[in-house]
């Protein structure tokens, strides 16, 4: 263990930790825009600069040394940090109220911490290029005027989802996050998992239908047998949002496109809530008893006439493991091994 003194507080951290991690352990806040605990370090926002043994370094990258003395709030550190945040704001969309990240925005949080001053901002030349948002994806949109080029979405796509649909394109001030050929994101290999949207520190990536929920309900995703932990955002009697549950051991917050965005079936008018039986060529709603009796009759008849192997069952990936277990049990009890599952197809 290395001993590190941060702002006079001594803390012991493991060798190989960064100054940022040490500060976190000591309970000291260091502002950052491009650092994310799930991802590799980037070091591009330069907002986490601190004084380590007299040198100005980025806390997210600098490894601790034994006996290191870190100061996170010297005049010099404050000045460099403030200047960086001011420069980001200079080309950032001015309107926070209409932004879906309002009140949960990292740039707002960091701006408040470094202390943005209107007199100073007046000296700064603001230039936000009026670029139209990319609304090609039905689930989330991209607003380039709110992008701070922290690269979190890029690293997420590569490191979390393994797709690498996006990367930095162009150079210098003209740098932007783009898919191959700078096309609309819908025309890329993006799988719309939405992991980038979750991690975007600003409102650059936002849900196509952003609705703020009034309460949260923990649940398990019913789409497949993985059983990802989710949090359903509910407003009135409707589910308006799904988020991955970071505390769930199964998925630790990650979700796929279905789990995150495929919840409109819940309140959909076409959703089947009762079994349908075909009578005179037309599907008619029936009771569960009637439907199950019908199935039992038909299956017994087939078994009697053609043998058990004339029967077969395909179960759904949306059933739980326990349900699938029972399903194959029924068929084996009937005397056949003809059991399959849609996830295999």
């Amino acid at each position, binding site marked *: 263990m290395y001993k590190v003194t941060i702002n006079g507080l001594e803390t012991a951290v493991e060798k190989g930790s960064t100054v940022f991690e040490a500060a976190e352990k000591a309970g000291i806040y260091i502002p950052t825009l491009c650092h994310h605990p799930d991802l590799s370090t*980037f070091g591009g926002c*330069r*907002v986490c*600069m601190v004084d380590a043994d007299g040198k100005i370094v980025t806390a997210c990258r600098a490894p601790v040394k034994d006996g290191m003395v870190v100061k996170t709030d010297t005049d010099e550190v404050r000045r*460099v940090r403030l*200047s*960086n945040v001011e*420069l980001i704001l200079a080309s950032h969309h001015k309107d926070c109220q209409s932004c879906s990240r309002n009140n949960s925005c990292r740039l707002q949080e960091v701006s408040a911490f470094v202390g943005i001053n209107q007199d100073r901002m007046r000296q700064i*030349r603001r230039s936000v290029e009026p670029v139209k948002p990319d609304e090609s994806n039905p689930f989330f949109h991209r607003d380039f005027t709110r992008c701070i080029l922290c690269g979190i979405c890029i690293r997420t796509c590569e490191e979390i989802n393994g797709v690498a649909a996006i990367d930095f394109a162009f150079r*210098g001030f003209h740098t932007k996050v783009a898919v191959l050929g700078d096309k609309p994101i819908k025309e890329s290999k993006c799988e719309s998992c939405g992991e980038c949207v979750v991690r975007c520190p600003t409102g650059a990536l936002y849900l196509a239908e952003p609705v703020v929920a009034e309460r949260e309900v923990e649940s398990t995703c019913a789409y497949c047998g993985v059983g990802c932990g989710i949090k359903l955002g509910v407003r009135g009697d409707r589910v308006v949002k799904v988020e991955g549950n970071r505390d769930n051991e199964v998925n630790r917050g990650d979700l796929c496109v279905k789990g995150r965005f495929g919840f409109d079936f819940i309140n959909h008018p076409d959703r089947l809530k009762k079994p349908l039986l075909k009578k005179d060529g037309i599907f008619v709603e029936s009771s569960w008893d009637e439907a199950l009796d019908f199935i039992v009759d038909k299956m017994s008849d087939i078994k009697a006439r053609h043998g058990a192997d004339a029967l077969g069952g395909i179960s759904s990936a949306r059933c739980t493991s326990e349900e699938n277990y029972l399903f194959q049990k029924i068929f084996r009890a009937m005397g056949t091994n003809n059991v399959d599952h849609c996830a295999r197809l």
Partner: protein
Amino acid sequence: MIQKFDAIEKEALKAMEKEQNNDIPQIYVGCATCGNATGAQSVVQTIKTKLDKENLTAEIKEVGCIGMCFAEVLVDVIKPGRPRISYQDVTPEKVEEIIDSYLVNDDPRPDLALGFFGEGGPEDIERIDTGDVFKNQQRVILKNCGVIDPENINEYIARGGYKGLAEALEMKQEEIIGVLKDSGLRGRGGAGFPAGRKWESCLKPQADQKYVICNADEGDPGAFMDRSVLEGDPHSVIEGMIIAGYTIGSSKGYFYVRAEYPLAISRLRKAIAQAREKNLLGENILGTGFNFELEIFQGAGAFVCGESTALVMSIEGNRGWPKPLPRPRTTEEGLWGKPTLLNNVKTFSVVPQILSKGADWFRSIGTEGSPGTAVFALTGTINRSGLIEVPMGIELKKIIYEVGGGILNDRKFKAVQTGGPSGGCLPEDKLHLSVDFDTLVEAGSMMGSGGMVVIDETTCMVDVARYFLDFTFEESCGQCVPCRQGTQQMLEVLNDICEGRGREGDIEHLIEMGDSIIKGSICGLGQTAPNPVLSTIQYFQEEYEAHIKDHACPALVCKNLIVFHIDEEKCTACGRCRKACPVEAISGEKKVPHTIDQSKCTKCGICFQECPERFSAVERLTGKENLAAAARGRLTDV
């Protein structure tokens, strides 16, 4: 000395002797990019046709740049037993005259000659190798440039080439590093890191593969030192790289050359092939068992790829982004994660000479802290622009007034810019400073890789700062906030100042932002980008203030801050300006002094140029009052 090399050297000397024993004249044409751009290739063609027509025999040699760019196209003629006479500003027509007069009739044509080299030249032609241009120069790195045919390896060998390699191959690796350390050689790319120490730190790590990279991604505006060395003496760089490979235990080297240097690339290709043919490169070099291969990698033109880690990323096929600190040194973990030795063209090129002539010889040139010579691309408003090589420690004054021949048109000196977009501008009272790695940094500039731009009184310093900032703004890679956003912000402020929208507090804003960009940026590009602004504020603050407070551009350059006006008393109504004005803003008749309609004037400046000097009636006015008067219409009340 390795026996095998003796044979190669003898063969080269013999080949050269054969060439020189021929009792025929030799004609050298400067065919580096600078020469070719001025028309050297058509001069070469004309010479060939002319010789055929006159039935004359002469050896034509396309040589590299001798550095006298102000006199291109340069044609040098050596008649047997006579000194080398250099002819300047040669055109196809002139070269026919030269051949007729000098080759046929033995009249050396002093009217066309620039000078001669050596002794025993014609009386009415000046000797140049002892004259102003060359007397302060010491050509070490450039010794072969403009002298040898860069496409003939024998010429290089005959002038002592590859001797350094032959000697190095008989030395222990540590011994070579010892010589480099003793010589005090510092990297010529700009930062001046001690080369011996760099090589040593690359020798130490154990690895199955190591790499040598030559950084030829020269990108400073107005700088062409590395290009000239590659075009004029490619073998010196190749030899240096082979020695480096042997020293650190590497079998593979890369030339990282910008694709904008096609001639350098083609000469390098030929030179590599020739060296391979002579077994100076490739497998089992000179029978010593040492293998070394060289590959050329063409950079796609991003300035930031001259930064070592971005350069490595670029070869690896990644986006050319510098790696943020802390990171392992390139000498430990460079290309493909292997120990990599990266040096500038000029650093590699001087190594062979240090090994063959010794560390003491190198130390005898230059200063204690910066031994050796410095190569500069001397440009700007100077009489003799070109490529120069001077001993370190020489005063800036000597370079500008003696080597460069002073300011063009006898105008007043204002500043000298060194170090390109990373450097700064130094005013007249700093001209006593000596040129070396450390002194210029103390004064707020830097030596950089060797650009030197001389600026006279007709240049606006805010505009100069804006020019360099525009360059770094365009070339910033975009990875970190201070550089990406900061250069843009500084550029916006400078644009405002130059265009009359400067605000009180802007100077302080620029200084503060500059400081944050220097401290916050990832790589050298951002860390030095504010230098041109900060150094001009340091030495020419009054010009910034004039722009901001009085809307005045003292150098009369910034278009938005000047108005054109015709002095009625001086105007002779000759009508030239009126006819030349592209927007018909000038009115007047014969014998009626002309006036400019300010509402139509686009400030193109043509009237100013057209007005004959003896009248000088068109003047440029600046300042709030003049601008306001112009805005009201005609400038009659000024």
